[in-house]
């Protein structure tokens, strides 16, 4: 084989490689006319290299983000440097349909793009090369992961039935509030709320009605609390509320409103009407609480007093 033949062979291999590589390769002149268009681009766009040759890229693909792409290309040409764009900036540059009927969950192909300057024999930039990477798999798994994490985060802190914070999450918030108090000295109060005679409701009217009462209580709490207040379900029929920036009187007032609203409701059951009343114990945070557990215990003893004093009332720990 002569050296000329060898060169020709090498050229064919190279051309084959460029043709069959699974990334998109496009060469543009400085007027954005297509000078090269490999197999990947042909297959995904449906346009052959001969059809696009020497035609303006933006005429061929009117949906391209022209101003954005022109700006990037100009930077590459003037500064003679490569530039990169990520699917996080724009999910796609060329709008190629996702071609996977079974495993494809995205509508379009997600793309990363590299724009490289191509210099002529005199060293000045004469053309640019766009390299288009299909990153659909990466993008969709990253998005799925983000969604799953978000959902997990939500699930791990919420009580499934009521949508309020669960006990673990709520106690963490309580501890944080306790620490904030000792650092910044802001007011804070905690309330424990218990549905009166809940066991009797369950026994007389059944668990379904009991659940309804729980939901009604949670809903009423939410409706009567402020943005910063943190309601949680503490256990069966017991609830807790963290009230930041609130003193004893303020907390009593808010809790009494919840108690009052609930007492106006009733749940109809075949076995008779159920009146909902609740007892509430409130404790404002003071130096006397050595730990958040002790603070909670103060609210619990106030709740006990409310029960003892005949239920359907709010008592503040003193």
């Amino acid at each position, binding site marked *: 084989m002569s050296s000329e033949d060898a060169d020709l062979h090498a050229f064919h291999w190279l051309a084959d490689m460029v043709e069959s590589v699974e990334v998109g390769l496009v060469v543009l002149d400085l007027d954005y006319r297509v000078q090269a268009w490999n197999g990947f681009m042909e297959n995904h766009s449906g346009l052959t290299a001969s059809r696009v040759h020497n035609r303006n890229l933006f005429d061929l693909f009117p949906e391209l983000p022209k101003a954005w792409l022109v700006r990037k290309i100009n*930077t590459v040409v003037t*500064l003679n*440097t490569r*530039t*990169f764009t990520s699917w996080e900036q724009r999910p796609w540059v060329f709008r190629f349909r996702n071609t996977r009927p079974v495993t494809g969950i995205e509508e379009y192909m997600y793309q990363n793009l590299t724009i490289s300057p191509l210099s002529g024999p005199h060293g000045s930039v004469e053309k640019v090369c766009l390299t288009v990477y299909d990153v659909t798999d990466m993008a969709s798994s990253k998005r799925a992961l983000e969604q799953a994490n978000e959902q997990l985060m939500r699930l791990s802190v919420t009580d499934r039935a009521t949508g309020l914070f669960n006990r673990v999450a709520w106690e963490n918030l309580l501890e944080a509030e306790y620490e904030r108090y000792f650092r910044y000295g802001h007011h804070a109060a905690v309330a424990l709320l218990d549905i009166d005679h809940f066991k009797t409701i369950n026994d007389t009217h059944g668990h379904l009605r009991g659940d309804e009462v729980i939901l009604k209580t949670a809903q009423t709490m939410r409706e009567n609390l402020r943005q910063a207040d943190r309601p949680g379900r503490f256990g069966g029929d017991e609830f807790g509320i963290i009230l930041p920036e609130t003193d004893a009187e303020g907390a009593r007032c808010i809790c009494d409103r919840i108690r009052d609203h609930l007492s106006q409701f009733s749940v109809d059951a075949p076995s008779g009407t159920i009146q909902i009343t609740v007892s509430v114990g409130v404790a404002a945070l003071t130096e006397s609480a050595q730990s958040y557990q002790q603070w909670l215990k103060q609210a619990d003893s106030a709740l006990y007093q409310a029960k003892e004093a005949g239920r359907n009332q709010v008592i503040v720990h003193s």
Partner: protein
Amino acid sequence: MTFRVLICDDSALARKQMARALPKRWTPEIGFAEHGRQALDMLRASAWDVLFLDLNMPEMDGYSVLGTITREDLPVMTIVVSGDVQPQAQARVLKMGALGFIRKPTQPEQVEALLREYGILRDDDGEWNDQPDDLKAAGLPTSETTEHGVVGFQEFLQEIANVAMGQASDLMARLLNAFIKLPVPKVARLARSELYMAISAADNRAAYSAVCQGFTGAGVAGEALLLFTDAHVRDLATLLGYDQEDSGEVALEVLMDLSSILFGAFIKSFGDQLNLKLSLGHPSVLGQHQPVAALLEHHGGRQEELQCIEIRYEIEGHQTQCDLLVVLTEDSIPHLEQQLQFLVE
């Protein structure tokens, strides 16, 4: 009378490179100053013919030296030698009285051409002789001829980074149409778990966004990171002209645009100086709106000593800045040390 040349640079490597770049058969008396103040003291004490002056130095930078030379009318021809290749930097020093400007890394041909242009060097110059240039090396202060231990290596990296930083900032200046103030790069060895300390002036309360890009070649590998505070991203978006655009992802555009050119130019110049061809991966967003410590959190379980280079680019007149952090793997260090041997021998 012997011709007297003073070389002022904070980097021992740069002083050495400058001394070597002088024409081989020319043997003037060579003096060295490690910072601007020292150079001025030497200029006041005795007469020097030529001063080769670096711009970015701690203590007193090259601009201040130029200003003082003019003010005190010190009789010396100053040639600025700098990695800061922004046209504005060049224009400024010429206006301040410098005779010429030489880009780092210093090329002997360029130095000779400049010396001839100003008639400092003539073919019939009596000071030409055929002595080999290791005589010049004998004139170097002893601190530089001692072993190239950790200190020598750090200094070497600092100077390489200094030149690469200049190349990168030139592109950034042209993109933003502004003048970039260059610092002295900071180099340090840090354990992987302490990486968050690499951004020395980080504001612990501010939210940062970062892009990273890996590079590798010939045994040298690492990652470049670009960090911005969110407030500075908004300023840069305005400078880049993104404020007119509708996109909600302006911050990402700014991150990607600036990191593309800074990483590209820095890594290319870094590789060129070491005779390495480094390939760059695709950049990715490390995170947005987080404290620095969270962005640079220690993820892997591996204990590794990393070589860090930190550069804070400040954009003059805009109170805007970003931090470029180049982190080299532990495995790269022996390869770099080898390159250092080639460069200084």
